[in-house]
């Protein structure tokens, strides 16, 4: 059953060590940006990763790509741990895993034409000659819904949505299997968000892509994902299929997040009871003891501050629904 996992992240950890002192640097604690998380992504699915700002979502994506070296753990891509790869092998695997960045304004070099931008990965991997690259770029521009004639324009001549399309085209240029989408639509207008999301789902079908979709907006993630993991302060607190997560959230943090999603119907919006989480995300330098969510949790008991809950399966129908809470499923609406 596990054979069709394209990517498996096992016990991934990324700690940023803080140092103090000038001459004799000593460790002054660490920021546990990603603390022992595990998840599996099946081929062809979209795996959503949600959480508040600063909970380690982007760090996870960067650690998978080894843009920052993880402290510990395994990232298994098609059965091989890419964290142990030597440089040469890593270089080849980079063709297969691509990333789309959040900010389409900053992720495209202002000094390069979009033709150069999109063909840059081909240039780095030495694929094809000039003619082939141009042909490929034009084809991709067409696929993502831009005019191939604009190949010699600069990024500033495009709107935000168009630039994100350029980013998508660049991610597709090497025929990757897995695309990490690091909040690809959060910098865009809502109407444009929908266009880009639809484009991404169309491309997924056409090229059999697998997405790791990172976002802080649950409604966006629900729209595209098959499975969703909820992160809080460097840990995964709940994993479930997107229907199960929305209909039957088990972790109080997930309930809180879902309750923050606005319903575009004023009547319904008025009637429903909202759970408003109080307080801020605690500092990851000094995370709370036990369950990291307990200072903000409306149903926390004594045990929550003493023991750390494990991620356990609570599903009854054989499907997976993992939650890390001692009181999983207990309603928090008073």
């Amino acid at each position, binding site marked *: 059953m596990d054979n069709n996992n394209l990517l498996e992240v096992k016990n991934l950890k990324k700690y940023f060590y803080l140092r103090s002192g000038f001459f004799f640097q000593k460790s002054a604690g660490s920021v546990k940006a990603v603390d022992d998380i595990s998840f599996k992504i099946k081929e062809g699915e979209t795996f959503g990763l949600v959480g508040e700002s600063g909970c380690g979502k982007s760090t996870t994506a960067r650690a998978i790509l080894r*843009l920052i070296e993880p402290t510990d753990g395994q990232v298994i891509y098609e059965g091989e741990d890419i964290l142990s790869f030597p440089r040469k092998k890593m270089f080849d695997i980079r063709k297969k895993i691509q*990333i789309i960045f959040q900010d389409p304004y900053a*992720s495209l070099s*202002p000094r390069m034409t979009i033709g150069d931008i999109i063909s840059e990965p081909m240039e780095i991997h030495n694929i094809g000659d000039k003619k082939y690259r141009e042909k490929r770029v034009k084809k991709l521009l067409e696929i993502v819904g831009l005019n191939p004639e604009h190949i010699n324009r600069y990024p*500033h001549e495009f709107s935000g949505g168009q630039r994100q399309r350029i980013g998508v085209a660049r991610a597709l240029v*090497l025929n990757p299997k897995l695309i990490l989408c690091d909040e690809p639509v959060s910098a865009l207008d809502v109407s444009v968000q929908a266009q880009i999301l639809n484009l991404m789902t169309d491309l997924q079908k056409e090229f059999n892509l697998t997405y790791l979709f990172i976002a802080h907006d649950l409604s966006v993630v629900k729209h595209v994902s098959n499975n969703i993991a909820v992160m809080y302060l460097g840990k995964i607190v709940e994993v479930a299929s997107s229907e199960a997560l929305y209909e039957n959230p088990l972790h109080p943090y997930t309930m809180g997040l879902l309750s923050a999603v606005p319903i575009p119907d004023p009547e319904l919006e008025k009637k429903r009871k909202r759970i408003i989480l109080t307080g801020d995300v605690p500092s990851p330098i000094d995370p709370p003891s036990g369950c990291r969510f307990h200072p903000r949790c409306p149903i926390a008991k004594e045990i929550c501050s003493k023991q750390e809950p494990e991620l356990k399966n609570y599903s009854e129908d054989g499907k997976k629904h993992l939650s890390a809470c001692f009181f999983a499923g207990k309603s928090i609406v008073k």
Partner: protein
Amino acid sequence: MHISLKNRIKKDKKAKFGIIIVCVFVLISVFGPILVKDPYHFSIDYLRLPVAGHILGTNDLGQDVFARLVYGMRASLLVAISAGFLSTAIGTIIGTLSGFIGGAFDKVMMRIVDAFLVIPAIIFIMLVAAFLKPGIMTLIILISLFHWQGGAKIIRGQTLSLKNKNHIVSSRTFGAKKPYVLMRHIIPDLGNILVVSFIYNARAAIFLEAGLAFIGIANLSTISLGIIMHNAMKFYYLPVWIWWLVPPGIALSLILLSLTFIGTLIEKIIDPRLRNA
């Protein structure tokens, strides 16, 4: 950054002045020697005040001072361009490498830069130049060797901030190797800063060369603005000396001022916070 350079220059009177002066300077240096007399030509017509044949008179060897002035401007420009280029090149190599590689390499390089920053360049160049034959090439190399530190620090700072820009990070996710990122992304993005660094280094080089020549650290058989002024000081008791001192002095001041104005203009274009200042 998409500001029309033309419009900015139109508004900025100082920059306009600077650009015109630099253009005039370049024109004189390039075409002047065709028009003036041979500056090395001795004649018995020495220590003259300005007359019809010699606009600025002649010196103690009977050489035409105006011709020497034109050749002197040429020498200053040569020093400016070559020392400016060399020191910017050194600064760029050290700055981008230590910013980009980081870690221990960066720490060591920055301590070396700090060491160079506290060395008083003038005194050091004087000492070294006194040992070596102080020709114009020696001076260019010495000035470049002692005037790259400030630029290197600024370039390192910029490299550090560029390194984490998304378009450079994304280039790395595609597997780009460090030299590729450096040549393809970081150096082009540094563009404007390199221009400013070049202008300021060129200005400092002109000033240093003239100053050193003025106090006699130069090959006195060659011609430069500093050397003309150095010679003037030897004849301060005769009325001619003022004609040897003031014109090169004005030429020097004008070129330094113009370079400063142009530098400020480009700095303003780079840094939007300075734009209304």
